[in-house]
């Protein structure tokens, strides 16, 4: 398959290892992966703040970069949520609709499209707490949120369970928001950071060595909070574990 790799701006800048792990993982499965050089962002930061007109050009650029691929894959749930569910600042041509429909978050792609049954190269002998970002949990439906009375499922847990040696811990409030929330994290920073402190403490009390997530944005925020209040915790993106990161 010909795949367009979407590496969101903050992953490009702060978490290149996440982009590399995603690329390598997709290549391991034999895909023809391309990284369009002119990519920047999906428009979500402006859109989430209510600025629809201001994200139109960014959305148009996204479509120019990712048109024509069989799939567009990204290691960021909230960005994929924006592309799929809120990407409406530009005219909805057939091309735009096609790009939106073919854009997948990495976990979804591996679980639903690739249907991976093993990661023979991966071994991660550590206690991890899984953090489902709200975008992946309640929008992309990676897992069943605790508020609903429906049969349990969890795609990230399914994938991580195939990794040798991994051990899961369960925090007291497993799907409470960590407080990142995009621009919420800066415009409402006091509440945002308090939520972050509570989140990392909850995982620490559950005995997690690592918090693992499909969203580096939540992890960036949580890491900043953990360092500020002195909670010893490590953070890792699910792509890195699935690609065989040792620690």
């Amino acid at each position, binding site marked *: 398959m010909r795949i367009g790799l979407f*590496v969101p701006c903050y992953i490009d800048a702060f978490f290149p290892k996440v982009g590399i792990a995603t690329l390598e993982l997709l290549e391991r499965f034999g895909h023809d992966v391309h990284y369009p050089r002119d990519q920047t962002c999906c428009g979500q930061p402006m859109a989430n703040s*209510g600025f629809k007109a201001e994200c139109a050009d960014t959305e148009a650029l996204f479509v120019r970069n990712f048109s024509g691929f069989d799939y567009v894959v990204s290691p960021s749930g909230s960005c994929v949520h924006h592309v799929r569910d809120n990407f409406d600042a530009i005219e909805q041509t057939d091309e735009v609709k096609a790009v939106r429909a073919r854009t997948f978050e990495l976990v979804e792609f591996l679980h639903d499209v690739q249907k991976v049954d093993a990661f023979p190269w991966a071994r991660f002998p550590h206690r991890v707490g899984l953090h489902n970002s709200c975008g992946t949990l309640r929008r992309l439906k990676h897992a069943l949120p605790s508020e609903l009375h429906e049969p349990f499922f969890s795609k990230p847990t399914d994938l991580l369970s195939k990794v040798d040696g991994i051990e899961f811990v369960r925090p007291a409030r497993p799907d409470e928001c960590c407080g990142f929330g995009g621009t919420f994290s800066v415009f409402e920073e006091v509440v945002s950071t308090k939520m972050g402190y509570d989140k990392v403490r909850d995982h620490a009390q559950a005995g997690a060595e690592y918090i693992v997530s499909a969203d580096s944005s939540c992890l960036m925020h949580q890491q900043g909070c953990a360092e500020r209040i002195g909670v010893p915790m490590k953070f890792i993106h699910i792509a890195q574990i699935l690609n065989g990161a040792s620690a």
Partner: protein
Amino acid sequence: MSTTRERIDSAMLHPELRAEGDPDAIIRGGRRLDHAEGTSRPLRRAPEPQPRGAKVRGNRPIDQQEAAARFIAATEHEKMHDERLWDLRQKRDREMHGIPEWEELRSLASAIKEHTLTHLDEYLDQFETNAKSNGIHVHWARDAAEHNHIVHGILRDHGAKSLIKSKSMLTEECGFRHYMASVGIEVIETDLGERIQQLDNEDPSHVVVPAVHKLRTDVAEVFSHTIGTDPDNTDVHYLAEAQREATRPLILNADAGMTGANFVVAETGSFVVCTNEGNADLSANVPKLHITSIGIEKIIPRLEHLAVFVRLLSRSALGSPMTQYTSHFRGPRAGGEMHVVLVDNGRSERLGLEEFWTSLKCIRCGACMNTCPVYRRSGGLSYGATYSGPIGLIINPTFNARKYSNLPFASSLNGSCTNVCPVKINIHEQIYAWRRVLVKQHEVPFAKKAAMKAAGVLLSRPAAYRAAIAAADTALAHLPRFVIYNGLNAWGKHREVPHPPKQTFHSWYHENRGAKR
């Protein structure tokens, strides 16, 4: 030089008399000079003062964030508040798991409400006809002022000087207590939490548990200077009993009673009030005159529909299977009089808002507040509005878009509210939609607008974007400004900034997959 005798004396003194660590004490020869009474400290530690709500200045936008920061700084209050409401959320989950058809019930409740709201005129007419034939006087109020005048008129006709009432968010919306005070009628709230709030001259902070933001030390403080309890006695039984003793005579002697209504049944012309304290029944049944204020969205077509809502209401609100009292009112008692005031107060207008009309499905259970991580850490009074929490974010701007323009931004858009809502209001999507509306109406600060415009320009021009981070390896430290737009300062105030790597993914790709296009 001190003598040996004095040194021994000093060493043997009680620490309080030595006044160690007290910068204000006057000490001679190792001994506190001033009168022991005057400087003695109370044995108990002074309780943490209650953080107050948002500062309301006329029509100016409420600064929810400022009030939330003060609430968080009051660590005991914030911790209690977060844990108490999270406990309600967990109890709700347990109740939910006991009902196999829970999600079906939610869908049904939502469908009944949507049907009713889209046939509102018919059902209101039906209710009026049936209520009148039950002997109920029916009044219509266009807005808050009209509601208050109508109620005042009824009270005046009966020469009523005092009114006992149960909790009603609608009367909060109407500023009813303030109005009644201005016309010299005494109002006595009979819900314990609401009474506490009334005595403290504070709005309810939650639609179901109005004083949930208060510690019992706060309640002891309020009662001590309003009903004369011992300020140091924070025992809940003592405080509740004292309040009961103080309020019961007022209830028995009141001239009129008032309730709200949780549900209004069109086919029977009756209404239903759900409480846990039975206080609505006192308000309705002790005085001869019973007045009920009802928002027009409370109507449901038939009695059988009530079964759906009653199963959802208390489970969602408090995680209990039922409210202690679910009282049906069908008409006046013998020798009594019953009035119903049907209030619009912006509801018809809201019904016409394409993106927001379904907020009228709300049954005021408060589940969205209990689950909201922002609400639990901010306190309901930080919203500076009648309705707080997620439902408040989408209802308040319909009353005043400028004053409540900041509220839709007080959300991480996590969406938990939507999932717990028993009538399936898409709350987080409406929060998102309100942001768009407010930006369009220019109700957001200029700095935010400028930052977003600049971000939009930069992120849509690959060359400029790359140039901005061109000297990537050295300039990465400055990236948060581009990535998070409005500020390294706000990011770094209470958390560490990310550690910039040696290389962006972009340049890694260039080095390692350079040939590939």
